[in-house]
């Protein structure tokens, strides 16, 4: 669900770019403050690839179909790297597949990347009981579902408030409602998928999830 060129007013497009610029800057600052900012790049790059391809995978939700977004997964696994990852993924989707558009890149990145950071916030509640598989699974589900859910709510608000006068507003609203409802199953699907991924990572590479547990003074160089 990416907004294409030519349907949003210019003021919204500008606001989207402004928001995306601000969040990207802040994310970069947070990444730069990490112990070794390069350490997260391989993980981020691979998940960007997954995000880039995911939008081509359509899931039939009668009477329509929706495609995977995976922004919740990116947020949960990547943390602050998720926003730049979403931005880069969306850029390549727009350039390669004309999926979304370059004028709407700012809006799309804000609407998809913002909820990814929110999913990260949810998943960080894991600190309460880091060893608990149940808590990890539940938070993974919530993060994955919230990524899609908040994105769809933001898009819904954006579309409903920018229906141009020359359209039949009632018919357009009906179509928007149908689109939003079609994303409810996707929330569940992405929630379950994200939970599966984090449980898998917890078993094989737990260090890929969340904060480093070694305290700085132990890291001898």
């Amino acid at each position: 669900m990416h907004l294409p060129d030519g349907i949003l007013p210019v003021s919204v497009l500008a606001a989207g770019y402004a928001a995306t610029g601000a969040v990207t800057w802040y994310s970069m600052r947070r990444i730069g403050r990490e112990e070794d900012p390069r350490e997260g790049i391989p993980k981020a790059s691979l998940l960007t690839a997954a995000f880039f391809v995911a939008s081509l995978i359509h899931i039939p939700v009668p009477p329509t179909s929706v495609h995977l977004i995976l922004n919740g997964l990116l947020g949960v696994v990547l943390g602050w790297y998720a926003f730049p990852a979403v931005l880069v993924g969306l850029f390549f989707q727009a350039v390669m597949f004309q999926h979304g558009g370059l004028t709407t890149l700012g809006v799309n990145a804000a609407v998809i990347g913002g909820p990814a950071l929110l999913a990260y916030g949810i998943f960080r509640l894991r600190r309460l009981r880091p060893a608990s598989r149940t808590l990890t699974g539940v938070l993974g589900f919530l993060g994955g579902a919230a990524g899609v859910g908040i994105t769809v709510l933001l898009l819904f608000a954006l579309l409903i408030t920018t229906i141009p006068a020359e359209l039949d507003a009632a018919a357009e609203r009906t179509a928007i409602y149908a689109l939003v409802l079609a994303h409810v199953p996707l929330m569940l699907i992405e929630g379950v998928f994200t939970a599966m991924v984090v449980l898998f990572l917890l078993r094989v590479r737990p260090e890929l999830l969340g904060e480093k547990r070694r305290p700085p003074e132990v890291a001898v160089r």
Partner: protein
Amino acid sequence: MSRGSKGERSGPAALLLAFLLACAAAALAAQPAAAHAMEAEQGWGEAVEITATYDTGDPVDGGQVLVYAPGGDSEPWATGTTDDRGRYVFMPDASKPGEWEIQVRQAGHAANVSVEVGGSREEPGEEREAGDEIRPEDTDEARGSDTLQRVLMGAAVVWGFIGTALFFAGRRR
């Protein structure tokens, strides 16, 4: 027997009455029709057919169509709705030659097409996907090679990401 003969006699009378009633009804019915005399003229012209599909191949049923005449008018020249096969047909005003812009929209999805009207050649109709996408205005001759091209481009980008990952993973060691 006498009842029967009476019945036979009343038969033609009833028929006559029915006939008169029918005439009156017809006259009454004809009255309003005459007041709304209608004429139809026929003419021929070239029409533009738009077919909008999502990138899954599903037609855009009930998509809203906005047709803009050339000349930069911000008001649509015509509006309409695609049918259940995603089609919409309109007849452009031949006195306005130039690029006609057509936009099909549905719930945040949109596709733009432009059709050249007038001049030597008129494009018979164009097909654009409405998925989340707008394609460049003049590339969709061959759908097959298009798909292959997209797969290759996608694979190239994915390989770029994997390469980046390997590069930074290698540096770490």
